[in-house]
């Protein structure tokens, strides 16, 4: 699972094709090989191999002390991760899905996010919490939340949303280096996706957004599970003669305002795509920042393609109607470009 044997003369052209799931697994395994302080803890991460098979095989390599199955006690094992981090370890706590993380909110919000501040800078909490997020698999309302924006509301934690194979592979290493709590949201719809991992890449930053496709007519700003849809929409738009720029936020806290402003200062139009709800969410925050900093750059009203303001329904046609879709993004882009 390493780059050994690859002709380095090929340089940045050399890539490996792999799934998002394998990229996350490789990231965990390499971090554990490199640092004895790193361990994985969560529900069914060991014998079961992970709810999404992310940690399959890790128990065999690292044993039950470092690939630690927990009871269904989200508050206790997230808090235990925080305590272990305070005491010199570098835990990776897997909360099976964001839906269950609500049972651990006290530890995340009242402990992890606050201890550095409340202790006057004495107790930083270098914990990494990974969780699956998102809808689209007919799991109904209680298993389909997209609450990245909730967590991004809280000062004291960092919130990252790996959307590409490269970020899935390399964000974890940076998160483990970070002295403060980092939450990594893995959109469950991405685990089976395949992409190319450049062999010469390494740890990536947890601070900046990335332009995934250059364009000049409209900025499509998104993150996580919606990036693929945004890129698909941009392709269709180009056939329609509209040049769309796709900005992957990558990190929701801290939010890379400069990258958003830079993009809209070029295109003067924006469509925000967010699987989360529109009201009081990430898309609203982006709108507010543009209103504060770049209102005179804008040639058209902001448009938002977000999750409908309903609990996610089970029936497939209803669920799909509740989520951002490619044609909705294309329509919104045409609307602002024509404005």
């Amino acid at each position, binding site marked *: 699972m390493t780059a050994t044997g690859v002709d380095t003369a090929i340089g940045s052209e050399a890539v490996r094709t792999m799934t998002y799931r394998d990229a996350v697994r490789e990231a965990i395994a390499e971090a554990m090989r490199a640092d004895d302080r790193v*361990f994985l803890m969560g529900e069914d991460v060991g014998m079961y191999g992970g709810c999404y098979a992310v940690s399959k095989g890790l128990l065999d390599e690292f044993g039950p*002390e470092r690939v630690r199955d*927990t*009871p269904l*006690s989200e*508050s*206790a*094992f*997230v*808090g*235990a*991760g*925080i*305590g*272990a*981090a*305070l*005491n*010199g*370890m570098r*835990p990776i706590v897997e909360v099976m899905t964001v839906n269950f993380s609500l049972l651990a909110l*006290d*530890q995340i919000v*009242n*402990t992890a996010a606050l*201890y*550095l*501040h*409340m*202790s*006057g*800078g*004495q*107790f*930083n909490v270098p914990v990494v919490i990974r969780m699956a997020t998102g809808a689209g698999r007919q799991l109904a309302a209680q298993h389909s939340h997209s609450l990245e924006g909730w967590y991004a509301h809280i*000062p*004291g934690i*960092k919130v990252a949303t790996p959307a590409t194979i490269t970020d899935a592979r390399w964000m974890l290493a940076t998160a483990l280096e970070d*002295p*403060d709590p980092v939450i990594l949201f893995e959109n469950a719809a991405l685990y089976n996706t395949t992409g190319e991992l450049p062999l010469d890449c390494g740890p990536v930053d947890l601070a900046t957004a990335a332009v995934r496709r250059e364009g000049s007519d409209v900025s499509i700003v998104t993150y996580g599970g919606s990036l693929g849809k945004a890129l698909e929409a941009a392709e269709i738009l180009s056939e329609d003669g509209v040049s769309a720029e796709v900005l992957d936020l990558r990190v929701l806290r801290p939010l890379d305002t400069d990258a958003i402003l830079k993009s809209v200062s070029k295109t003067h139009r924006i469509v925000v795509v967010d699987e989360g709800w529109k009201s009081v969410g990430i898309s609203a925050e982006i709108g507010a920042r543009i209103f504060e900093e770049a209102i005179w750059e804008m040639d058209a009203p902001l448009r938002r393609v977000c999750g409908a303001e309903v609990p996610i329904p089970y029936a497939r046609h209803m669920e799909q109607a509740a989520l951002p879709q490619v044609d909705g993004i294309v329509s919104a882009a045409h609307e602002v470009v024509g404005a």
Partner: protein
Amino acid sequence: MNDHHLHLLHDMLRVRRFEERCAELYQAEEIRGFLHLYIGEEAVAVGVINSLRPEDAIVATYREHGHALVRGLDAGCIMAEMYGKVDGCSMGRGGSMHIFDRDARFYGGNAIVGGGLPLAVGLALADKMNGSHVVTAVFFGEGAVAEGEFHESMNLAALWDLPVLFCCENNLYAMGTALERSESQTALTLKAASYQLPAWSVDGMDVLAVEEAASTAIEAVRAGGGPHFLEFRTYRFRAHSMFDAELYRERSEVEEWKERDPLDLFRDRLMGDGVLTEEGWRSMEEDVAAEVEAAVAYAEAADWEPIEDLERFVYSEVGA
């Protein structure tokens, strides 16, 4: 042994007089926010913490001034914290409920009931994984046993055989709710026992009983005996916080418990045993009064943090 007993008495007196002064300073509006006094419960922190080693860890609650003092945090730094001064032990960011000290391994000052228990489990997990023979003592009130975090943490600590000493300070009231009004099972040791933890009840008004139980339990935990649970039966003489009209308990009940004031009981006992003289007691009072007044003077003289620093300590200052 006599010196040790005098030390325990001295510690209890320090906590008592320090907090009495805090109450005055609260009335004088020097200390603001919530102020939860430990008066009446001193024997618990004094007996347990004196049984710990410097390398052991402590997780406490929002009623933790006493624990911090006994652990060896400077009284001036604690007082300055209550004043909200930058020279306070948490730089004025925490106040009365959030006293922290890295060197003393004093992990707060957690003001969410039950919130410190998972943290203690994690501290102990790291120690176990590192093979160090360190104990984490976590304090919480009997109100915390109604929280899910209590049950999750007890189970996890027992399941993983972690070196945690669970110290339940049962003062009979969760703010204003009596134990029998909130629990179907009021025998707290049974709850712990259901998670396979050795558990016993201790007279929390008797500092020597506390110390004996704590020492025994800590020794067992340190030796790899897994987590232990101690219930300390104690009583809060003062109101829950400074905003409490005490409508939920009879004055006579408070007076009855005051008959068993842990400080008076132990002082009288040491005097009866000839270990402490009237003069020795006076000198101890003077010594403590001087410490408390020095703490107040330190807090008064301490600086306020500049407002420009407001956004510090949200994230670590890397490279600083």
